């Protein structure tokens, strides 16, 4: 009798251990469609914000945003992002001059960042999808500029194409390893 009871208890304990391990392992890794860890979320937001900032009157050069994202990008992606590092001349889109002429800056709202629901993320990386909306602000007055008061070619106002960033974890830090915005399945 005691032996049967011991076996029964052992089986129950084994089941508890197995269930706990499975449950723990499921909680431990990132899930497709799930929320990002705080440090990964911060990296994604920082990258998108810097990219959107790039044309604003608060930017010293059109490529200032590269300096901001360099610490949070992989070397491979940074090289691809900034292939003209040795160029004697910068590259300035028209809106950069417009913003400096008007003293406009861009304020972005980055939200709903989740792991991509199709490509399952791993503990060392995955694809991140976010929502993005921009406001154009008059830096002098602090007022928001309405879309109708902006020229046709000015895009930094209203809902934007959802950012899609590839994040990888290197040496314990999350880094941006690609920008796949504009691509869908």
């Amino acid at each position: 009798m005691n032996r049967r009871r011991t076996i029964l208890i052992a089986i129950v304990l084994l089941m508890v251990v197995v269930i706990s391990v499975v449950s723990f392992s499921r909680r431990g890794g990132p899930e497709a469609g799930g929320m990002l860890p705080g440090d990964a979320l911060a990296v994604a937001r920082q990258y998108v914000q810097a990219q959107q900032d790039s044309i604003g009157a608060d930017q010293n050069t059109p490529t200032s945003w590269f300096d901001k994202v360099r610490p949070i990008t992989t070397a491979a992606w940074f090289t691809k992002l900034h292939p003209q590092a040795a160029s004697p001349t910068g590259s300035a889109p028209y809106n950069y001059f417009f913003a400096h002429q008007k003293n406009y800056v861009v304020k972005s709202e980055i939200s709903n960042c989740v792991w991509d629901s199709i490509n399952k993320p791993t503990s060392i990386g995955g694809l991140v999808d976010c929502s993005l909306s921009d406001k154009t602000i008059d830096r002098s007055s602090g007022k928001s500029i309405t879309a109708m008061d902006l020229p046709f070619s000015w895009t930094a106002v209203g809902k934007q194409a959802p950012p899609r960033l590839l994040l990888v974890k290197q040496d314990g830090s999350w880094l941006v390893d690609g920008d796949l915005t504009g691509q869908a399945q």
Partner: protein
Amino acid sequence: MLATASVIVYASAGSALALSDNQTKVFDSGSYFYDTDVNYSACGEASALTTGGGSGASTQPPSAITIKNAKIVIGIAKTDNLGKQGALIGLMTSLTESSITILGNTKVPVSLSYPGIEGTGSNGDSVGIFQQQPQYTWSTIATGPEALTNQAAVWQLMNPAYAAEAFFGSPPGSNAPAALSKGLQNISGWQTMQPWVAAQAVQSSGTGDGSNYRQMLSRAQSLLDQNWDLSDSVPLPVPISGGTASDSSGGVASCTDVSSVNGSCDATQPLYGSINGSGNEYSLQQLAAIFGDPGTAADHSTMENKQVTVNFLGNPLKVNPLVAPCLQAVANQIKQSGSNYKITSMACYRFDSDNGTSNIGLKSYHTYGAACDINPPTNPFVESGAPTAHDMPDEYVQAFHDHGFTWGGNWHQPKDYMHFEFNGIVPSNGKAA
């Protein structure tokens, strides 16, 4: 804007990311191929999906100057037979560079006396609507530092027609001078690149991933839609002879190669592809067994060449020969229903790259010519699976279903309202049910 002859090679530098214990997938984040945001041009009626920024808010309409110059860009694209795809890339690029305005440059004094000048910038020594720099061999008249003081060379770049001609380049094999041999047509595979990647390949701007151009895609699309029909072909300021014209189709059939469809459609419903699934229900082995060897990203000519053309309600589409009879039957049923739904963009076959992220490579039915997307701008792909507004008519869904197609709008997660894929064949015998 720095715009040199160098071409950025995007397809080589992928980064490896371990997906699981026994699987490593290369995220080739620089190799872009179309998927849902493809330009589905068809007989001048279709357009590209607007995936650029700033799409949600109404803005000022384009200025008269922008429209005037946009028509010139479109006109040169028409002369070069680059289709809407080429015109879109030209508009997107020139919108980014100059808001399609003829800009002089305070650092290039001779530019300021150009009779048609419409504004002044100070970026490098860039001038004109594409911000081409005279010293970097964009002009046929002079190059190098001396070009900066050569009025004829600078003014040539401020002529919007010439600037567009230089941007679009010349057909490979033509006798074009160097200044006209580094444009879009000279970029191998530009038709299947994401538009902003193609733009960057020509311009070599300081933002290597082309995201600066991507921002302007939706604006360019709008401009194209409004002005394509209103724009006449524009003669090339520097005539070019010889060479092989670019294929601007990007895998989409032209209006002149519509062929008849052989065989009949035996499918009466999809046999695979649960409405709960992701839709990619055939395995890779089954897809290849049924539809043929898809090839690789480097060489998929065999699959591409076997595609036949279906005239789908006026839209010539390349599809797998096994699918063609059923797609034609779908079109016939829709026509009989009296549907007045307007197809503005539609495509079927294309080779989807497998970059491990947004495109699913050989798992994509498009890679085999066995799936079609209709009007992506109004029938979105929704990864979360959340019900989303779309305008796919019931009669379309029914007609596709009745001939063996699964609709992505019926999937639980994700939802792909633009997408129909053919699942009307029994894999074991390779025949339609």
